[in-house]
């Protein structure tokens, strides 16, 4: 039990970061993480010690987040307009860099599945198979979501200098 709790604790910064990126609201993110930890403790017998604990925790967090989205949609409420944690007061994009405010808007327009996948891989550095496990999708689906997310972001952030790129593949 103590070791389990230590391992959960070690994952907290990563869970909070991902939850903030998904919700754009620090308090809301911590609410989700708190629910996630409580659920993990209640269900710890279901975690197989052979699998990575972190991926399992992300899976619980994602389920809670998706349930919440579903409830909000059904009630016809709006998820609060994003409260940006870091006001991106970055000077007009330097060549070769993407302005953060531009990226912030772009990530909002991605569909939910692509956003969940891209942020999990990029922010948390989970291996592709761990990320697929956390998202409960096959590896191939994860890769195609990553591809589509990146293509969409490229269009949205119109990252300047290379106007005519051929798509990969």
């Amino acid at each position: 039990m103590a070791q389990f709790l230590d391992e959960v604790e070690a994952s907290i910064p990563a869970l909070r970061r991902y939850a903030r990126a998904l919700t754009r609201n620090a308090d809301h993110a911590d609410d989700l993480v708190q629910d996630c930890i409580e659920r993990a403790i209640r269900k710890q017998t279901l975690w197989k010690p052979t699998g990575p604990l972190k991926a399992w925790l992300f899976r619980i967090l994602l389920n809670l987040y998706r349930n919440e989205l579903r409830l909000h949609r059904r009630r016809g409420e709006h998820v609060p307009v994003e409260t940006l944690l870091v006001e991106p007061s970055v000077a007009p994009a330097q060549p070769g860099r993407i302005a953060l405010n531009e990226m912030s808007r772009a990530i909002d327009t991605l569909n939910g599945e692509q956003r969940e996948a891209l942020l999990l891989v990029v922010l948390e550095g989970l291996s592709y198979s761990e990320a697929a496990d956390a998202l409960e999708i096959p590896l191939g689906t994860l890769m195609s979501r990553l591809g589509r997310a990146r293509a969409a972001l490229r269009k949205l952030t119109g990252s300047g200098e290379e106007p005519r790129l051929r798509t990969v593949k």
Partner: protein
Amino acid sequence: MTAAKFVIDADALHGYADGQLTPDQRAAVEAWLVDHPATAAEIAGWMRQNEALAALFPPLDHEPTPDRLRPAAIADTVRRGRWHGLRNVAAALVLMAAAGSTGWVMRGMLWQEEPLAEHLIDNAVAAHAVYVQEKTHAVEVAANSPNLMRWLSNRIDSPIDAPNLSASGFTFLGGRLLPGESGEHAHGPAAQLMYENASAERVTLYITGAPPDKKQVWKYEQRGNVDAYYWADAAVTCTIVTDLPEDQVRGLGKVIFEQLTRKADSTWNPAAAPAKVG
């Protein structure tokens, strides 16, 4: 992965941008990109996206964890909530010991293996997962269809009524028929009934006709993110599946048990919940 099997495709390029390749693979991709400048520019774009995302959502490794997120504190709260249940298990053990049960009998009482029950619970949880997320086709036949319960009763070969859970805030949405199975865990067709409350939380009941041995069995189990409350008697087996908190599930269980088969003489047995001493 061996170097020979490594193919430079879209997946490999993502792996390169995300730093997920081995040094050999990286070198192979880098060499390939020299000859494919357009793709190289695209990959550079992906890496700039990664940088921008990392800057937008910086790591929280050095931010102190708020007290409310400390696992030890949360575990304490969870334990306190469970104390009630543990005390009852302890009381039941004392009672059985006092009744002179041998160790072997106690083992039988406490750890009875019920393969059919486990199998039906698995089915119920799987069916719950599939249909509970449906918005427009959550049920096959809507609650207001006049012949719904007669049809389902006929198909599962046991008369059932849809329990009225409105006192607990749940509305009956309707039901569907699910296939039976032959083989080791043979059972007849199952009726799935679905309920929903105002916050869109859903509960499903997975009901089959009585098991061949018509034996009474009670189980309360957690499977994945949901809880399952199962019983079997001489009329039906019923598995309640939901992700509501346990005390609420147990409360619903009693109401459902009393109404499902309209049997006034049924004895409510709350599975592993409070065992009355004395």
